[in-house]
């Protein structure tokens, strides 16, 4: 239960009455004076010691008062006032060469009033932990009942103080559209609007809020805000801007918001999920936060320079995202306006010195399945095991089929001229006194002393008329090391194979040249070709020490040789490598007369199985018989269905494993971090620093232990941290009300804007922390406020009085974020595919847009099917060339933290909405819907269309304009069906078949108009 709900009435009872309207609001140093001093004076008389002039500092009370330039209570006797009003170029402040304009009359008046009142300093508002003040009690009769929760009390009090009052309540149809956009980034469907309008129960709105807060699209909407801040993208950013897999992190963010993960946990897992004891894969994925920065692969980039760049990047990001601080300004010198020092900058960077990465080059990825993926993988494995087991169950039916198969295959094997014939050696010798024994299966087994090197000489009767190749099987044996292939360690290195022919008369011997060799497997850098390259320091090996398995190689003669009679082949197998005793332990030789000797056998039967098959059934060992059965059951048509399922499951497993590959944080020995004088990475003279939080904000108590990212994260979300909660609730406020309570979302320091409602911001920050950082609770509090539910329209007088809407005497109206402009058009048309998560997708993009990418050159190929219609946030984020239709709508490339996007209004946006195939296709699909579901006449269809697009019926004026348009274009397209056909063919989805093409084209024009309307792309 929320604290407000728990304590709300009590708080209201304790609330202090608002003082009678003060004639003149007392001057506040933080609110009124500091911004003036900071922008006009601090550059030379502020915190930056190195650049301080005249040894005067005005940013601290001590500095200002002791210097004597301020006489508290006596503005006219204060040097400060004399200087800022002086006309003398040698005296005046700010000096003319600073290019800072003189103080305005209003600023001067404030300064004088402040000195007159005693020139009191107070600490900068955001550096003091927030305290909950009681919401004001409204005594104005007319508005006494307006407030629905404390937010409203704070807002209303300020409105009244500024001679404003709340706007009317928004229409309910506006309210559901606004709320659905704010909480999901999507428009409500026309049925959702109708249901809400029809629901007259008093809690209808609250139930709507609750429904949307549990929508799977809430996480997507909040992720758009968060991913901008943490600079999430699919590519490295610098120079070649190559791909890396990070979508699991994006999906983690969406999931965390959807599960309403408390924000403190959300923080800990991103900064330090990898450091949790027994970190889950999800936590490791979350720690990918530390890897989202831009990285380079550029040739010639110096590791040391980029290590410094990455440190700066991380400091800028973490301080901006959580603290709203511009700590990045302290990279070269102490901060000019805020009490951050260069040492603070590098000490903050030192927290991340343990993050393992490549300074220059492609970053290593790790496979980290999510909990969901792990569960699925485990289910797949179980199913595959069950299916495989089923394949091995006794079955008379299958055994009968096998008998038939064996008969047929054996016939092929023996009748084929392609067959390899295993040949029993007539003589086997070892150059170094090993005992080589021919076994029953015609293989040769080595025993006795195992010499460092050895060469085997094997004589084979050459009975075939024509011999084209030699096959060598290396076979495991229990007497060999590691149950492998040699007595050394299970591996062998065969350095050379040579063959000689002793002719049919048995007298002459001549070498047989080997043309080529193939093997079923070769160890890295030990290819089979090395066994016939004439060099004794290279050879063929098969990793028998690591993966003991039988292996086979085939050697093709340059020319066929003639056998028959007394002809014999003398084969030499040399083991001359530097690896001692790597002599083959057991082998078998075979010959063939096939034209192109290869390792394949009829039906792709493995050599080993061909051998088993050629052994009479009665003589087969049980193991051999089982192998043959296993093989048969994995090729038999009778088991095809089962095998197909296994294959699909294997494919799914691979897809999941590939998708699970991502960048996570791996902690290692921390790099040394020094203060870089003036930010110069070549300068090693600076002091070495340990991880530490900015000194003026406190000190981590870790004793002798080096502070970690986890310590940093815990400090960020500690109750006494003055910034984190304010910064985050202000982000949420902007989502719900269009702008922050503190306007400058990127700076809460002295140069940032003073909050319009500091007590409210603090109240919300405390509420947030005390609700255990409950994001959903805060959103609900805001959504339920009366302030939120005001209309966004107002009188010209109110607009003139409060043009920026500081006092929230109306809701804001503004253009949707770029991704939502897209989502909205797709949703209105019905094309939108609402799948949550997964790898990034490639929607349409103009041809040639990637032509300036290089290393390597790339061509963009859009996806097909569902992936063309996914939400904008899943678009492939190519940092150096983000999809131009998003860029046109101010979507950032995410190279740096973006706390607030501009909301521009440009001709390029018009061109996108008019001409981008995504929007043209959406218009055509929308038109098809109007025709098929919107009724029969134009006014009906237009009503339907406006309900879908903007949640209201069409006005007579709109009907007039669009009816004329559709009539005109219907006539034109009827006369020119070829053009109509071209228009409706836009995009990869198929137009409906039973709709007249000219009619569809004409209504597509109408749909294009509606999708382009200001109202359609506006949240109001």
């Amino acid at each position, binding site marked *: 239960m929320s604290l407000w709900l728990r304590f709300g009435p009590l708080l209201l009872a304790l609330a202090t009455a608002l003082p009678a309207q003060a004639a003149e609001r007392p001057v506040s140093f933080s609110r009124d004076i500091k911004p003036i001093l900071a922008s006009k004076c601090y550059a030379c008389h502020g915190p930056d010691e190195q650049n301080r002039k005249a040894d005067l500092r005005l940013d601290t009370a001590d500095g200002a008062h002791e210097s004597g330039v301020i006489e508290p209570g006596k503005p006219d006797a204060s040097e400060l006032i004399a200087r800022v009003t002086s006309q003398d170029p040698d005296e005046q402040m700010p000096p003319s060469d600073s*290019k800072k*304009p003189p103080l*305005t009359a*209003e600023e001067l008046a404030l300064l004088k009033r402040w000195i007159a009142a005693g020139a009191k300093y107070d600490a900068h508002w955001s550096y003091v932990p927030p305290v909950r003040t009681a919401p004001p009690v409204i005594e104005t009769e007319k508005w006494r009942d307006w407030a629905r929760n404390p937010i409203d009390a704070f807002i209303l009090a300020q409105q009244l103080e500024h001679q404003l009052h709340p706007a009317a309540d928004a229409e309910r149809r506006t309210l559901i559209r606004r709320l659905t956009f704010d909480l999901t980034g999507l428009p409500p469907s026309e049925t959702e609007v109708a249901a809400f309008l029809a629901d007259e129960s008093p809690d209808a709105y609250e139930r709507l809020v609750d429904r949307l807060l549990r929508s799977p699209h809430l996480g997507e909407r909040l992720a758009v805000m968060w991913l901008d801040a943490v600079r999430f993208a699919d590519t490295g*950013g610098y*120079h*070649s801007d190559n791909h890396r897999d990070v979508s699991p992190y994006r999906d983690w963010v969406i999931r965390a918001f959807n599960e309403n993960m408390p924000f403190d946990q959300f923080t800990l897992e991103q900064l330090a999920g990898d450091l949790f004891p027994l970190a889950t894969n999800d936590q490791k994925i979350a720690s990918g936060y530390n890897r989202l920065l*831009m990285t*380079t692969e*550029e*040739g*010639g980039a*110096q590791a040391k320079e980029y290590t410094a*760049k990455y440190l700066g990047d991380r400091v800028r990001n973490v301080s901006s995202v959580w603290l709203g601080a*511009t700590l990045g*300004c302290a990279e070269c010198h102490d901060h000019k306006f805020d009490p951050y020092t260069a040492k603070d900058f590098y000490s903050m960077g030192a927290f991340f010195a343990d993050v393992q990465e490549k300074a220059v080059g492609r970053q290593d990825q790790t496979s980290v399945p999510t909990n969901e993926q792990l569960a699925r993988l485990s289910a797949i494995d179980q199913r595959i095991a069950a299916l495989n087991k089923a394949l091995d169950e006794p079955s008379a039916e299958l055994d009968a089929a096998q008998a038939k198969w064996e008969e047929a295959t054996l016939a092929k094997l023996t009748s084929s001229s392609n067959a390899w014939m295993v040949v029993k050696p007539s003589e086997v010798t070892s150059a170094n006194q090993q005992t080589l024994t021919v076994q029953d299966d015609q293989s040769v087994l080595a025993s006795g002393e195992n010499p460092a090197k050895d060469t085997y000489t094997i004589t084979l009767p050459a009975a075939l008329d024509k011999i084209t190749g030699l096959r060598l099987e290396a076979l495991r044996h229990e007497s060999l090391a590691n149950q492998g292939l040699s007595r050394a360690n299970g591996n062998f290195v065969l350095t050379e194979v040579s063959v000689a022919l002793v002719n049919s008369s048995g007298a002459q011997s001549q070498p047989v040249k080997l043309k080529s060799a193939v093997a079923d497997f070769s160890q890295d850098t030990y290819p089979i070709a090395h066994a016939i390259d004439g060099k004794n320091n290279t050879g063929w090996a098969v990793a028998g020490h690591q993966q003991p398995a039988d292996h086979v190689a085939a050697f093709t003669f340059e020319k066929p040789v003639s056998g028959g009679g007394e002809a014999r082949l003398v084969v030499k197998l040399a083991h001359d490598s530097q690896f001692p005793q790597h002599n083959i332990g057991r082998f078998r030789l075979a010959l063939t007369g096939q034209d192109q000797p290869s390792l394949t056998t009829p039906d792709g039967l493995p050599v080993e199985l061909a051998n088993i098959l050629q052994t009479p059934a009665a003589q087969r060992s049980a193991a051999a018989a089982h192998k043959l059965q296993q093989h048969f059951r994995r090729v038999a048509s009778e088991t095809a269905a089962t095998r197909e399922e296994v294959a699909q499951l294997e494919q799914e497993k691979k897809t999941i494993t590939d998708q699970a590959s991502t960048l996570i944080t791996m902690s290692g020995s921390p790099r040394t971090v020094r203060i870089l004088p003036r930010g110069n990475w*070549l300068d090693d003279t600076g002091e070495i620093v340990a991880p530490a939080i900015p000194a003026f904000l406190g000190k981590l108590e870790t004793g002798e232990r080096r502070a970690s990212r986890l310590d940093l994260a815990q400090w960020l979300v500690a109750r006494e941290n003055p910034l984190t909660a304010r910064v985050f609730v202000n982000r949420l406020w902007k989502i719900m009300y269009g702008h922050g309570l503190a*306007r400058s979302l990127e*700076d809460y320091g002295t*140069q940032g804007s003073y909050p319009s409602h500091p007590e409210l911001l603090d109240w919300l920050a405390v509420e947030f922390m005390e609700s255990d950082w409950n994001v959903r609770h805060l959103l609900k509090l805001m959504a339920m406020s009366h302030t939120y539910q005001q209309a966004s329209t107002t009188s*010209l007088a109110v607009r003139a009085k409060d043009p*920026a809407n500081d006092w929230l005497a109306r809701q804001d*109206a503004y253009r949707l974020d770029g991704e939502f402009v897209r989502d909205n058009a797709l949703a209105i048309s019905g094309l939108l595919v609402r799948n949550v998560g997964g790898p990034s997708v490639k929607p349409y993009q*103009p041809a*040639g847009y990637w032509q*300036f*990418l*290089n290393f390597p050159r790339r061509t963009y190929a859009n996806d097909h099917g569902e992936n063309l219609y996914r939400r904008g946030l899943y678009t492939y984020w190519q940092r150096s*060339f983000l999809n*131009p*239709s998003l860029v046109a709508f*101010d979507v950032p*490339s995410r*190279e*740096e933290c973006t706390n607030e996007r*501009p*909301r*521009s*209004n*440009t*001709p*390029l946006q*018009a*061109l996108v909405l*008019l*001409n981008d195939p995504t929007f043209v296709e959406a218009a055509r699909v929308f038109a098809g819907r109007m025709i098929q579901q919107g009724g029969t006449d134009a006014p009906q269809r237009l009503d339907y269309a406006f309900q879908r697009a903007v949640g209201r019926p069409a*006005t007579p*004026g709109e009907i007039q304009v669009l009816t004329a*348009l559709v009539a005109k274009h219907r006539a*034109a397209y009827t006369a020119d069906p070829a*053009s109509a056909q071209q228009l*409706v*063919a*836009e995009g990869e989805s198929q137009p409906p078949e039973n709709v007249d093409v000219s009619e569809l*084209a004409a209504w597509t024009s109408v749909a294009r*108009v509606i999708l*382009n*309307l*200001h*109202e359609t792309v506006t949240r109001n």
Partner: protein
Amino acid sequence: MFRPTQLPGDALTRRMFLGRSACGIGATALATSLASTFTSAARAASEPSTRRGVVHPLHFAPKAKRVIFMTMAGGMSHLETFDYKSKLAEMNGQPMPESFTKGQPIAQLQNAKLTCFAPQHPFKKYGESGQNIAQIFPHLGEVADELCIINSLKTEAINHDPAHTFMNAGTTLSGRPSMGSWLWYGLGCESENLPGFVVLTSNGKFGQGQPIASRQWHSGFLPGEFQGVQFRSQGEPVYYVRRPSGVSAAQQQDVIESIAALNRQHDEAIHDPEIATRIAQYEMAFRMQTSVPELVDLAQEPAHVLDMYGTQGGDGSFAANCLLARRLAERGVRFIQLYHRDWDHHGGVKAQIAGTAGEVDQAAAALIKDLKQRDLLKDTLLVFGTEFGRTPMAQGNGRDHHIKGFSCWLAGGGVKPGLTYGATDELGYNVTENLVHVHDLHATMLQLMGIDHERLTYRFQGRDFKLTDVAGHVVQPLLA
């Protein structure tokens, strides 16, 4: 023709009330003045923010009204172009003295043996001014008396990507506005039909094609309106400027007029100034659908002009882009940036740079001549620059990246012609005379356009940002 609306201008938008101020007007003061404008003339026409510019009046009488910035991307060797070093020729093959290189940043030559590498092309004195220019630029030689060569540039980043960003935005950090956006923001745009900042890119045959990120023409923290727009001399000239297939010009006009009519109806009901802006932007979009194809259609150019540049158009070449640059300049575009991407000559610099120079020489010279004959050179500032130079040391038979001294030239509005300014040492390594930092170049460019670089500021993250950051001095000797 398109029917003008009752609100042709970009009426004041709420965004402008947010207290983000330029040229030092206090936030409150700006908001007040705009608010009063708004109340007194709420529905009155006003100039669009993208046309007017924020610097009123200009800080100085401007010498130039527009800039054509030719970027030789990849790092143009100063030693084969504008900065001849006879001593380097003498020392060819000898070790590079350690006194030059010790402790200096270095790119691909890390841990390599450093030897001197002679200039690979002969130079010649051109024109009455006797400018010393490599003979691979015969056409530029013809206009040598118009050029103001700077041989003492220095930058801060040694890899392409950050160095490009530094040359364009005065910082290696992302998210800052490029110089074209700054100038558009400061000065506005004279064209009603075209954006104020246009980018054109071409490839060559003699290099490896530098990647160039769209960040190079981004408006950063400035309002998105001031983002550079990529034009292409091949294919669709501006992304999304083509009508959908099957939609005629008249039908597209019907659609846009219907959008405008409905937006006006909506505005009458709710009075949101943002709607007037949107209506104006649709008008601009509509005009662009005509003006852009017209602009890129070089068939209108007479044969002798095409011959002068050395292009028939439509080929995506640097030459075609130079001709387009002239057409853009004539139409009032404020900042035109051309990229040629093939100057990264790590190997085979002799043949490669001759090839690349051949791809730009004639057209760059033609641009000067053409502007001059149209009397546009006097108020058009041309810059022919690069992100850094190349090492006096060999990298095989090429050169590595070098940031301590390199060259560019300026020409046109307000620039002293026939001048060679600044110098590097006898081996072309360090600047020894009249150092011009990239910030100084920016300050000088702004000065020529009538702007004090310290007074064109934008408040972001609590700080007044400038193109020149906290540095930069106007290089007075370069000014005519």
